[in-house]
């Protein structure tokens, strides 16, 4: 519990959501997501025309794991980092760009969106998001979880897992 957390809310959340929406429009991608490095979704946007996305929790977890493994590989090869991750199949693609130290930008696109365009707008969006996420970093003590919350959650634990 020593790692800072990114808590996006209010204006910062709105700003990040606008960046993702603009990115969707400009790149022609299906989905855009901002994740923290632990694999939790902070903000996501879907194109109106896109089909329902796969389970976002699973997607985010796998991408964060993949990004962490890629960074470990970079360090083993003497590189401070590999900046981006790109996977392309016959119809779908996935592009991941680092957003500072704490977050990742994910773009899921299909064959209607040229990869060059996805990368170009992805990099611009990542730069814009970096400032927003840096301002949203909070220390553990300011998260506002109190004992009332703890008691409520504890009662739910009993309900789900039995007494």
């Amino acid at each position, binding site marked *: 519990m020593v790692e800072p957390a990114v*808590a996006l809310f209010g204006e910062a959340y709105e700003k990040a959501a606008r960046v993702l929406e603009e990115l969707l429009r400009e790149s022609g991608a299906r989905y855009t997501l901002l994740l923290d490095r632990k694999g939790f979704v902070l903000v996501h946007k879907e194109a109106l025309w896109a089909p329902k996305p796969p389970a976002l929790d699973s997607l985010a977890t796998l991408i964060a794991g993949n990004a962490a493994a890629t960074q470990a590989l970079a360090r083993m090869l003497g590189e401070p980092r590999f900046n981006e991750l790109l996977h392309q199949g016959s119809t779908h693609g996935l592009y991941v760009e680092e957003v500072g130290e704490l977050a990742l930008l994910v773009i899921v696109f299909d064959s209607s969106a040229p990869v060059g365009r996805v990368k170009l707008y992805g990099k611009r969006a990542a730069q814009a998001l970096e400032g927003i996420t840096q301002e949203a970093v909070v220390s553990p003590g300011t*998260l506002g*979880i109190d004992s009332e919350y703890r008691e409520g959650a504890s009662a739910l634990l009993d309900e789900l897992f039995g007494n």
Partner: protein
Amino acid sequence: MSTINFAAREINFKIVYYGPGMSGKTTNLKWVFQQIPQNRKGEMVSLATEDERTLFFDFLPVDLGEVKGFKTRFHLYTVPGQVFYNASRKLILRGVDGIVFVADSAPNRLRANAESMRNLRENLAEYGIKLEDIPIVLQANKRDTPDALPVEMIQAVIDPEKRFPIFEAVATTGMGVFETLKAVSREVLSRVASS
């Protein structure tokens, strides 16, 4: 550190099942996945080899429900237990909120339990975390093994100072699985609320 998404009104916690290879970490998660209602769980993701040994991690999101207007969710992970997958284990520990250490009760796994606990301490240290900084619950699994060691002996090896609660379990039948998960979840909530 837990992640709060104020916009989606969600609070997420990350719990990692740690321990030596074949001690039953994935079996714990599978039991949880099988037993909790459909509307309280997400997809279980397993990155495993063909012979079902965890290669990178298993992942299961569990929805606790809504507390004070916030959806509360536990993300459960396992690490690969085999010694040579340490690089992967280290990555999974990033941002962890609580740990379940699954020990194997078989006599010939006592040393593996001890080595895995030492490995946990070393890997946490790389993130600047000490064992006492984080909620840890121990589970002595495979209590149905005919020559299972006494729990006290296992504890003496992995936690000689008796700092952490320990639960007996047979994960294949579900015995002790929910109790362990509940205990670590409670400790995580209590730690976050008091920070």
